[in-house]
């Protein structure tokens, strides 16, 4: 170990020669190159040579005989916070913190640490160093895991030494995440807010390099850092895909750290083209002893327990480049055992080694220096007692930069064998030493007793009971007195402390060098894992549903066209479209559905829904959040998607909540259960955005005092005027000088509204505010496409008609807050009668799956025709969502989004028997019954397996799965 350059020394320097020859070693030079019984020569921190044992060893080399032990290149962990043991300051959160409290000229948001250099706080960290070295990791890329933009990370050696000599690259990569970390600032308050912040920050930082209008220390290094690899931490597979999408927008290919659930969406994961970092902290079995408790665990969690160990193998089989991280494992044993488990579950040893050495080295562009053992490479390697993938192999010494770090005391001599000791009190006893390094041992006297041997400072010590069940002990200290040519220990000398306290010398000698295999446990080597489900949830299928041709015969047809309701009609569906309507239709290979006595309709479209949204339906933290997009956070696994299908729903608008006057952009999806987030989107749909008025916007029912502007309906109006006038100015500026105008995602969205490229769905209740927004729109030049909820619409129906607004309302909700005291269930009927396109919506996953009943209430309360009532949940929402060209009625050429009902769809007794989207059957009663029994079987299989695992001695954890959150307009969560 050298001193740091230029540091004054207290005494003469102690610089030594470093030249070591490891002989009789099995050297894993690269993942696919193993030199058996060879010699490794290390000189001055570098690999000098790998040579055969016969070759000449350089003069003066220290020779270490490894006796068949293994040498591996050090592993590299590219997802680490090693050495960055910074005490997190507890930042106090003030209620509603809108600004960054950090002193200095930094970015506006406290989750942006682009300026941070982890190298500045790096230092050797003893405890973690031990864990890394014992797990095989000699290098880490350390990035302080805090915030969204995490700044640059440092590449370091995990061995002992002054920081000066451990740092290999002070800025080796940069870090990103979706987690705002210690920031107490409100924004971003949702997953979609985080995406928006990342995007805006990229635009801002790029703009800063173009045009420096002011100093912003956060952005100073941005340009320089651009060339570095970017490690992006994500919390699950969909977050990983979300990150990859952001990368695509900005021409960046991230290295994505995932949760290890990649196998659940492996094709999409592959198509990102990204590199991955995966953890191997496989879940422990759950405690499922109590059957009712076991019911609380979701199928996905049960299956993940079973399948997670196969994740590395599945990634590898797909040819996806990945590195394995120790992150999440609790100690070296945990890591190594899980690594072996991954191998047992199908990962080849070669691939395992690649993922720990070559792949991470390539990710950081340092494969020419580290990751393999070849002449000239850094001498980073470790010695393993055995082939590392053998169950009890252990890491003994770990060399970093040629310097030894002792991990586990070991004896070069081979102590394995059966010895005869001549002990006082006991006479001749046999001592069997198994496993040289852990010194597992057995001792035979008359009885067989297990002994714990300790090996320290070249001496062994042990306490032996005088016989089984005796509490009298003989205490021994002994040492090797002779070895043979092959380093096998053949004799011991020692001192014994008798149970009476008297000491006496003793001797021991080798009888046989093959100890009993009594300690070998027979590992069960068979691995059974279930199949991936699409989606990975209850009611998921092993395969994605396929498109078929269908012939619906003899149905009562609710066309939603001028033909009205037709009896005894056939409908032909092919290639996802309705191709014929009539009588006695025929098509070869079409699946014939007998519809006698049944009703066929276009499926239900819910104008106002919050299902299938991940981590936050509201970005509540500012009064305008037009930059956030629900489309970024679609959760295609929300069980409520399936439940809506069972209620005949085929599409919905996923709306942002009603927290702010100008909320986020909505997403229109078709409920293609089983497909991924992007594939759920209604491809032909135009953009929509949520606006909101009234109590939620004023934060009237928040309980605490709030300070966010606006607090009154007066203020709400001003927010709109101000925002749109600024949007107009922005548009002008960006037209005049597109390259030198800061791109503003928020104002850009408002410009889209002004240019009729994006449409408004406005949450609204009382007539004054409805009227207000129409007046603002008229004066500025935008139209309110839809007033949603619109419970007092009936009071201003004439004005709405004049403005050209549509209405989407609740059937009968009222009295839940002050602003809905005048809500009446006759509202929709009056609006309809006024000629306003009117829909009935849910805003609620429960009501969403029986919107047919809600529509039927319009017949009761509003006395409208059944046909009109039905249109309120099908054609009318399609019209207001601008998708009526594609869906919403039964017409030749339209998408086959059909539902077969057991009865008149407005009847309380009607059931959706079959739900088709694009001519694909995503739900049918028949399929549903099959899935029900499949769920029961699969749950039972895994639960029994878990109980078995527990009985075998595996540690279990108590677990309850969180249910999918049922979001409403006013759901606000802590992010």
């Amino acid at each position: 170990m050298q001193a740091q350059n230029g540091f004054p020394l207290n005494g003469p320097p102690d610089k030594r020669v470093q030249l070591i020859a490891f002989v009789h070693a099995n050297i894993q030079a690269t993942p696919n190159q193993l030199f058996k019984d060879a010699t490794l020569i290390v000189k001055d921190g570098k690999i000098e040579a790998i040579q055969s044992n016969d070759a000449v060893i350089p003069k003066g080399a220290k020779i270490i005989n490894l006796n068949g032990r293994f040498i591996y290149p050090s592993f590299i962990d590219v997802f680490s916070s090693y050495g960055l043991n910074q005490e997190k300051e507890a930042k106090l959160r003030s209620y509603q913190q809108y600004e960054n409290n950090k002193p200095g000229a930094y970015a506006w948001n406290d989750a942006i640490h682009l300026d941070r250099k982890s190298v500045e706080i790096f230092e050797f960290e003893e405890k973690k160093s031990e864990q890394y070295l014992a797990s095989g990791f000699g290098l880490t890329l350390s990035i302080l895991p805090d915030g969204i933009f995490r700044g640059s990370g440092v590449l370091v050696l995990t061995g002992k030494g002054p920081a000066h000599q451990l740092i290999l690259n002070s800025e080796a990569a940069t870090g990103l995440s979706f987690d705002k970390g210690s920031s107490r600032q409100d924004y971003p308050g949702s997953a979609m807010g985080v995406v928006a912040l990342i995007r805006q920050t990229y635009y801002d930082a790029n703009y800063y390099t173009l045009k420096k209008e002011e100093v912003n220390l956060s952005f100073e290094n941005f340009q320089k850092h651009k060339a570095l690899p970017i490690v992006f931490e994500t919390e699950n597979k969909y977050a990983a895909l979300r990150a990859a999408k952001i990368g695509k927008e900005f021409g960046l290919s991230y290295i994505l750290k995932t949760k290890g659930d990649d196998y659940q969406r492996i094709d999409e994961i592959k198509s990102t083209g990204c590199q991955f970092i995966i953890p191997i902290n496989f879940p422990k079995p759950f405690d499922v002893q109590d059957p009712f408790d076991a019911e609380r665990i979701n199928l996905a969690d049960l299956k993940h327990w079973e399948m997670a160990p196969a994740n590395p193998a599945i990634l590898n089989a797909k040819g996806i480049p990945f590195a394995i991280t120790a992150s999440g494992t609790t100690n070296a044993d945990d890591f190594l055992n899980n690594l072996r488990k991954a191998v047992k579950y199908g990962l080849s040893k070669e691939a395992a080694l690649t993922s720990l050495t070559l792949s991470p080295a390539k990710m950081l562009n340092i494969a020419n220096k580290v990751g393999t053992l070849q002449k000239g490479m850094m001498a980073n390697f470790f010695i393993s007692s055995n082939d590392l993938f053998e169950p009890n192999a252990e890491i003994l010494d770990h060399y970093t930069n040629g310097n030894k770090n002792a991990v586990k005391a070991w004896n070069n001599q081979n102590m394995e064998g059966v010895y005869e000791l001549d002990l006082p009190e006991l006479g001749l006893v046999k001592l069997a030493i198994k496993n040289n390094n852990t010194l597992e041992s057995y001792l035979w006297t008359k009885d067989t007793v297990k002994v714990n041997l300790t090996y320290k400072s070249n001496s062994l010590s042990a306490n032996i009971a005088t016989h089984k069940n005796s509490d009298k002990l003989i205490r021994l200290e002994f040492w090797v007195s002779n070895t043979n040519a092959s380093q096998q220990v053949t004799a011991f000398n020692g001192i014994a402390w008798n149970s009476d306290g008297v000491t006496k010398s003793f001797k021991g000698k080798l009888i046989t060098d093959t100890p009993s295999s009594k300690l070998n446990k027979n590992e069960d080597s068979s691995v059974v894992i279930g199949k991936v489900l699409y989606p990975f949830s209850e009611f998921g299928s092993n395969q994605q549903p396929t498109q078929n041709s269908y012939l619906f015969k003899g149905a009562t047809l609710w066309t939603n066209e001028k033909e009205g309701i037709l009896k005894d009609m056939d409908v032909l569906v092919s290639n996802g479209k309705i191709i014929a309507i009539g009588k006695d239709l025929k098509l070869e290979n079409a699946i014939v559905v007998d519809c006698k006595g049944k009703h066929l309709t276009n499926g239900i479209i819910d104008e106002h829904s919050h299902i299938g949204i991940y981590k936050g339906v509201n970005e509540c933290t500012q009064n305008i959040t037009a930059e956030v997009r629900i489309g970024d956070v679609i959760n295609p696994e929300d069980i409520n998607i399936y439940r809506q299908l069972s209620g005949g729903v085929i599409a919905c608008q996923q709306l942002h909540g009603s927290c702010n006057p100008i909320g986020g952009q909505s997403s229109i999806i078709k409920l293609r259960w089983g497909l991924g987030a992007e594939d759920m989107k209604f491809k032909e749909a135009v953009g929509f955005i949520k606006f909101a008025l009234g109590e939620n916007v004023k934060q009237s029912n928040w309980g605490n005092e709030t300070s966010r502007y606006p607090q009154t309906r007066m203020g709400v109006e001003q927010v709109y005027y101000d925002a749109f006038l600024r949007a107009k100015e922005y548009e002008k500026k960006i037209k005049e000088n597109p390259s030198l105008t800061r791109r503003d995602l928020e104002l850009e969205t408002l410009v889209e509204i002004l240019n009729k490229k994006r449409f408004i769905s406005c949450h609204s209740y009382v007539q004054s505010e409805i009227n207000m927004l129409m007046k603002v729109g008229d004066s500025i030049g935008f139209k309110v496409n839809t007033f949603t909820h619109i419970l007092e619409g009936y009071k201003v129906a004439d004005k709405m008609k004049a403005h050209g607004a549509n209405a989407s309302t609740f059937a009968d909700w009222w009295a839940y807050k002050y602003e809905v005291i005048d809500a009446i269930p006759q509202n929709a009927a009056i609006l309809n009668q006024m000629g306003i396109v009117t829909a009935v919506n849910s805003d609620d996953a429960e009501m969403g799956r029986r919107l047919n009943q809600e529509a039927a209430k319009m017949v009761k309360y509003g006395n409208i025709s059944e046909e009109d009532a039905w249109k309120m949940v099908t054609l009318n929402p399609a019209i207001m969502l601008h998708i009526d060209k594609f869906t919403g009625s039964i017409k030749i050429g339209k998408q086959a989004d059909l539902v077969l009902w057991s009865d008149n769809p407005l009847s309380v007794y009607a059931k959706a028997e079959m739900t088709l989207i694009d001519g694909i059957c995503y739900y049918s009663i028949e399929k549903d019954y099959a899935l029900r029994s499949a769920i029961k079987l699969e749950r039972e299989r895994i639960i029994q397996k878990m109980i078995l695992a527990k009985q075998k001695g595996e540690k279990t954890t108590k677990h309850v799965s969180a249910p999918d959150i049922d979001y409403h307009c006013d759901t606000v969560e802590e992010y």
Partner: protein
Amino acid sequence: MKKLILIIVLIAIKFSGLGQTQTTIIQNGTLHIGNGEVIENGVLVMENGKITFVGNTLKTLYKNAQVVDAKGKHIYPGLIAMNTILGLNEIDAVRATRDYSETGMFNPNVRSLIAYNTDSKILPTATFNGILYAQAVPMGGIISGSSSLMKTQAWNWEDAAIAIDEGVHINWPSLHLSPYSSEDAEKQLKRTEETISKIEAFFVAAQQYEQAIQPEFNARMHAMKNILNGQQTLYIHAEEAKGILNAVNFFKSKFPAVKIALVGATESYLIIDFLKENKVPVILSTLHALPYKKADDVDQPFKTPAQLMAAGIKVILSKEGSWEARNLPFIAGTAAAYGLTKEQALQCITLNAAEVLGVDAKIGSLEKGKDASLVICEGDILDMRTNVISSAYICGEAINLENEQVKLAKKYKGKYGF
């Protein structure tokens, strides 16, 4: 519709709340008795507030009787909405209008009927859909208080009450770990155990109070008397199977005299045999709800009533809340779509409820000798499309079906000239 409104106005003028003065004969309609029977083309006579005849053909001649021709219409017993906060709550988000949850953990002595506001704007919207009786149920704490069965139309709470303090409500703790709790499993389970011991301690203390000679007055203990002797019903609110088992076994083994009923009971379908053996009536409240667990059948909430009823368990359907309660008939309708017959579904919101409430001798079915509390509906009361109540009677007296919503609709239709 215009015609209907006209009738409503006429009836509105007539309503006095002072009792029936004229004999009324309803004829030519379909009588849905409430006990499963149906009489097509039936006749029903109301005299002095009571039903004096139900059948196919009238045998007595009535002078000066008002005759209502119900041809094509359906006559039902007034619906009973159990497990509501109707009358106790006006606007959910406005604290000043909420009167259903007292502070403290053990409140058997607080009485919901005291807070029951007969002038609530919500009550007439329930009546509008055929609900003539509401069980006003207090919420909150462990023991929330006593409930009473109330008419949905009356001058004041005193007149409205027809079963005073008929039961006391207890919220049984969940025995499962919460996925949201920051506490570890052990702590959570310990807390649950503590809560159950507190409940036990409370019941034991109430027993001691009952047996003590001249104990110092204790309002909470005093209110437990009729629970301990089984004169009042103890309504146990519990959703999960494990909690239900725990609660029922608790009372069966420790306080066997207590008369219990289950409320909520979402997971009752998992322990049907147990509930049957113990003869516990079940007031389901989560039919128009999402399945409890992801693995549950998508239609589980809809079919639970049929599963329980098929086993012979007494089932009542309810909808928690205040304004939401008006959807009670459609909840029963949904249950009928999933396994119950329409008449069984009706029974779940009429006679079965009356039995649990101990008022089946008076209301709950269209049977001779019972109160003449009924509704005449244009069609099937359980279906939204046809649930149009043309008239309703409480104790023989026609009641007002007007409500604020109808008035507002009329006013603004007037604005647009409809």
